[in-house]
């Protein structure tokens, strides 16, 4: 996995987001409503896409898109 694909897939997953609107350095809360429902949508997405499980605490600690990528990527690597 790489961050470019990761971001593109998130843009597809969330209707609020336009294609090519998200950058690695973006703060999640600034880009869309980063609430509990969207958190669940994200959990479901990474589960199906990368077979990775993320806890609530880990999500809360992720501030930017890159943080999310690093979180998913680290778990993905352990699995692989």
């Amino acid at each position, binding site marked *: 996995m790489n961050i470019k694909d990761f971001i593109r897939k998130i843009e597809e997953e969330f209707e609020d987001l336009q294609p090519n609107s998200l950058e690695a350095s973006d703060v999640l809360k600034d880009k869309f*409503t980063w*609430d*509990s*429902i*969207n*958190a*669940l*949508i994200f*959990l*479901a997405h990474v*589960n*199906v896409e990368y077979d990775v*499980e*993320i*806890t*609530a605490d880990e*999500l809360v600690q992720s501030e930017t898109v890159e943080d999310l990528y690093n979180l998913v990527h680290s778990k993905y690597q352990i699995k692989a």
Partner: protein
Amino acid sequence: MAIFSVPDIRLAGISACVPEAEFHNKDYDWISEKERETLIKTIGVEKKRHAEKGTTTADLCYDASEELINQLGWDKKDIDLLLFVSQSRDYIIPATSGLLQHRLALPKSCMAMDVSLGCSGYIYGLSMIGSLMTTGKIKKGLLLTGDISTLNTSYKDKSAFPLFGDAGTATALEFQKGASSLHFNLQTDGGGYDAIIIPDGGIRNFADKDTSFDYEMISEGIHRNKFNIALDGIKVFNFSLREVKPNVNTLLGATDRSSESIDYFVFHQANKLMNETIRKQLKLPPEKVPYSLAEYGNTSSASIPLTMVTELKEALKGGSHSSCLSGFGVGLSWGSVILNTEKLVVPELLVHKK
């Protein structure tokens, strides 16, 4: 491992009953219109049924049972077993199953008991009733499952209120030599007991007038007291995404079945996002996975039989089908069954009028 088969048990019929009053989530004014739209789309619950105060799960199960027994043409004298699976009993004591035995005018030779399980309750209930009947001493049994969850849910809790609906169901089983086996895989992880919990009112936290009733703000949009259902959405979500797929796959493996050979996969109706994720994990085509969620919400242990009644009635009444049923949630408790049905008696969905 609790993987086992129960031979010589035939499913004879399934019926379900819901209260009359509907609640439409589009009218849920505790949250903004935009949030409401996202919520409805994500959880997949457009409306659900709410019981009036004073209507109990037993009332719904009673209606479902009467109609089912009537359509089956069963003699009540022959029913020797009644199992009531619910977490919304009529009284703290005694058990509700006894009240139902009496009200249904079942004989005193009938054994009756309550089992406290929710989302997994239908599968567990089938396993218990099947196991008790498989020796052939008990010829006919009734499994009653369901819950009234809306009474314990805080309107000001957006994480729980829009999800739950009320329903009660009845399933009739009979001993029949040579009937194809029911195959089970049942699991538990009590470490997650607090993922779905009503904290007060039991013996651990006895009802207290100073602390049980006060509404607390847990987070934005989530206010509840200690008699309300508290849901840890992410915990339940991760649990379900982690456990359901291997549970189903292990059962398929143990019974030497492929998912292609199963006609229907009926899952506990938790919420659309979770159920669809599980469906995709198991690579099941949408036409094999029916939903009653949009119309009736999450109805706890009633959700699987309710879905069979509302979505599969015609198919199940007709020919013979193999189904995999899977329930998962509160406990944490989960399990699946693979079974065959042939020409089930399935009455129209009943509506309970107070």
